[in-house]
């Protein structure tokens, strides 16, 4: 029998709870051992009840593999090439990112037990920088959902309040960071799937510019919208994670050959002279007053820091949800065609031959939300409907993108908005699909336009975290982080990210 894994030292537990830079510095100096960081992470998971019967944060974990990579890192210490910016840092990955050695299920029955024979570019970059992958996090099936209730492996619960959802679709990653199991996790965005759960769980969530981060190995949902994003405890942690995964990749033809700046240099840049746009469409009359209030406080903080707040308009905002729910399902209906039972994943044989196998495999393999979107997407691409739906939606999409170009061309540096229309809701509370879709009402437009956006904790409503969203121009991550660092510092003490749990 195997010996019970040693409990991590108190020092490692403390490092796991502290800033990334400290952890990395200690490991580089030899003051901490990567394997202890892995133990600390798994101990923390036990402590907070990350398992299936409680928070249900992970679809799979790999303590042995993580310990093994940690030991290899230790063996590397002292060699010529220095350890990377994430040396010894435990990291969790959303389960739609192809990973060696662990299943990649996308939260779906159809990929139960599927292990990718190759690894996503973002994972290779993480590993090359010394990150240790501890597990794959729960998610809405194929990233379709806003609550992580649509997982074939059961819902994830919000560590802040176990009766509530963590948001979605990257709910497992947001919960893993919020619960202090990892300092950093990767999620993915198609319409707000990193920012919305970040907001619900009180952590930082970043969606980069479309093309900033390679999609190679991210299981596609809406290819023209998808980006890998990071969830972190602090703006600095998130900025370090973003810097590691960003950059052009020859394996992704939509990745952009644009130099990646040092985002953490924005930490002390200050906000004097920065123009913050406040788009009126994101502050509607019916906005939850608690959210409106926290946003106003954040805007006041900006003014105090020397930034100017300017009222602006993005007139096509109201079309973003309808446009999103045409384009994303259309692309999804095609992207998910490969799950046909022929080469990998679930196969259900049928007496009705090939078509029977397709139908049975997909009917049993996909959950109701995925089925709904595949049908929706198939419909909008059909002969006779294409022009009325898909083509029209693409036309409106360009108008939405133009709104952003116009407002940034008018001298606005970044936009500030609420991330979500409500704080985290209770499990099972949102039953209507369309109502659930409205969770993305403030986030989907950034995906449609391809601009970077992030959610930063700005306060709470009776203990439930509230996030503020910062949106920047294409490849304007630096100014976005600058605005986020400033806001985080101004609000420190007001709300400490990640400190809300026991």
């Amino acid at each position: 029998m195997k010996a019970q894994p040693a409990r991590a030292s108190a020092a490692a537990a403390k490092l796991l709870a502290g800033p990334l830079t400290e952890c990395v510095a200690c490991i580089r100096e030899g003051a901490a051992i990567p394997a202890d960081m892995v133990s600390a992470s798994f101990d923390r998971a036990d402590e907070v009840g990350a398992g299936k019967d409680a928070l249900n944060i992970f679809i799979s974990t790999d303590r042995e593999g993580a310990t093994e990579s940690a030991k290899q890192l230790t063996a590397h210490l002292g060699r010529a090439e220095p350890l990377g910016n994430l040396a010894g840092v435990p990291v969790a990955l959303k389960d739609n990112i192809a990973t060696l050695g662990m299943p990649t299920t996308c939260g779906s029955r159809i990929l139960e037990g599927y292990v990718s024979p190759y690894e996503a570019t973002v994972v290779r970059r993480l590993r090359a920088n010394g990150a240790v992958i501890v597990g794959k996090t729960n998610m809405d099936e194929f990233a379709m959902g806003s609550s992580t209730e649509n997982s074939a492996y059961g819902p994830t619960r919000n560590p802040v309040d176990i009766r509530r959802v963590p948001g979605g679709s990257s709910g497992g990653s947001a919960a893993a960071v919020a619960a202090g199991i990892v300092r950093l996790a990767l999620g993915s965005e198609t319409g707000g799937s990193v920012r919305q759960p970040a907001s619900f769980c009180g952590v930082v969530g970043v969606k980069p510019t479309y093309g900033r981060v390679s999609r190679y190995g991210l299981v596609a949902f809406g290819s023209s919208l998808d980006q890998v994003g990071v969830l972190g405890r602090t703006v600095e942690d998130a900025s370090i994670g973003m810097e590691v995964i960003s950059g052009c990749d020859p394996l992704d033809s939509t990745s952009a050959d644009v130099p990646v700046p040092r985002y953490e240099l924005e930490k002390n840049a200050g906000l004097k002279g920065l123009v913050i746009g406040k788009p009126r469409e994101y502050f509607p009359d019916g906005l939850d007053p608690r959210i409106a209030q926290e946003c106003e406080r954040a805007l006041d903080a900006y003014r105090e820091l020397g930034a100017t707040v300017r009222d602006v308009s993005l007139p096509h905002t109201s079309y973003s949800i309808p446009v999103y729910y045409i384009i994303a399902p259309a692309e999804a209906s095609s992207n998910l065609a490969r799950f046909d039972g022929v080469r990998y994943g679930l196969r259900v044989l049928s007496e009705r031959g090939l078509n029977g196998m397709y139908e049975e495999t997909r009917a049993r393999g996909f959950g109701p939300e995925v089925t709904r979107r595949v049908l929706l997407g198939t419909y909008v691409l059909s002969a006779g409907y294409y022009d009325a739906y898909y083509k029209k939606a693409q036309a409106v999409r360009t108008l939405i993108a133009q709104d952003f170009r116009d407002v940034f061309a008018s001298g606005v540096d970044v936009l500030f908005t609420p991330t979500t229309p409500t704080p985290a809701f209770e499990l099972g509370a949102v039953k209507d699909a369309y109502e659930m879709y409205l969770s993305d009402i403030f986030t989907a437009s950034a995906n449609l336009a391809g601009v970077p956006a992030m959610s930063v904790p700005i306060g709470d409503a009776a203990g439930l975290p509230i996030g503020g969203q910062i949106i920047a121009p294409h490849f304007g991550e630096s100014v976005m982080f600058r605005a986020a660092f400033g806001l985080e510092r101004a609000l420190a003490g007001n709300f400490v990210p990640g400190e809300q749990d026991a």
Partner: protein
Amino acid sequence: MTAVTEREYEMVVGLEVHVQLKTRTKAFCSCSADFGAPPNTNVCPVCLALPGALPVLNHHAVELAVRAAIALECKVHETSVFARKNYFYPDLPKGYQISQYDKPLAEKGWLTIGELENKTPVRVGITRVHMEEDAGKSVHDRYNGVTAIDLNRAGVPLIEIVSEPDMRSSAEAGAYLRLIKQILSYAGVSDVSMEEGSLRVDANVSARLRGATKLGTKTEIKNVNSFSAVERALDSEFTRQVALLKSGGTVSQQTMLWDGARGETRPSRSKEESHDYRYFPEPDLPPLALDAEWIARVGREIPELPDARRKRLVDEYKITPPDAELLTSSAGFSEYFEAVARASLDPKGAVNWVMGEVSAAVNAAGVHLDEFAVRPADLAELLRMLRDDVVSHTAAKRIFARMVETGKPPVQVAAEEGLQKVDDDSALAGWIDEVLAENPSEAARYRAGETKLQGVLVGLVMKKSKGSADPKKVNQLLPERARGPS
């Protein structure tokens, strides 16, 4: 009442030709595009459509596609767009084929396939040339009761060449196909082999009364595996349609399969025509943007095409137009000819040997010309040996046969086989004496003045010498040897 006969109907044909581009790797990944590897060995996450994999366009494929489009007189667009063609099939790993739809690579080309009796050129319009990827292969007859899938071919780059419905007979369709094959082979775009599947044809055909301007309802014929099969299938399908129309029926738009064994077309069981492919722009690939300057350069670098080469061969080597026509029917043979003609300085001899011995030997061996054992330089050497009287014509043919078998140079073969001309008087005298001794009655009649026997006796000497005797010298020596020692 006049009987409506088949002659009163006109055949209208449009062809869709799929051509595999001659690239080392596949269209969207770095897997080998070679034909004939063991099943599922040339595959990777991209062409297996593993979750998360993404396509990256092969630029050599683009260059070959552009070359083909320009060779077919098309206008190449500076921007074209890849699109997904969605349908489920086990050998289509992604559940969609990456193709081009409403913004193809190139449009509006044409080919002149011949001329009418009144010298009017017959021109066939080319609607479009677009890029796409091939599917894998379903193997139905290998395992009992199940279908196997081989994905080596999945993702191999293709172009589809769509013609206008400009052809009016199966012969015109055949001429169009042979010309396309010839041009693309010359342009170095493809191996254009129907046997290996690097050229595939779907034929659209309809019938209408002569003089009608509206097109009839067409059917699409698939499963044709040679140019002659295309011609036979078109004739058969046309006859079927005309019979239908004459009996007052209507043609229904459908896919027909050609059954070569029975010599007839029959409706495909698949409901292919009811497919809604749900095309939309491929979001994983940016629009294909080509620089006008680059397109022009690709055009300038196209190797010499058949028409130009025919004219040049006549001018440069002073061979006859029919010989030039024959030689240029294949890019390989005309290149081989030129190499032989240049090295031997004997274009006439080169024509005869290339179209005669070389062509026959290559066919008999069933190899590609570039794998053929006799290299042009060696054949040129043999022609020089013939011209310099080092070998006889008979011996040259024997030497050539050995060269085909061994790949050895002619001088070596001639030496090894003792096939160099023997003009040494004593050796020749010996052979002649033996022949005269072995054929006493012929010898006697010859001596008696029956001079027409000269040829027979010389032939016997040549035979005895295994072709190495110099026939001129044998002719000179025979009368004096027959007279006997003086």
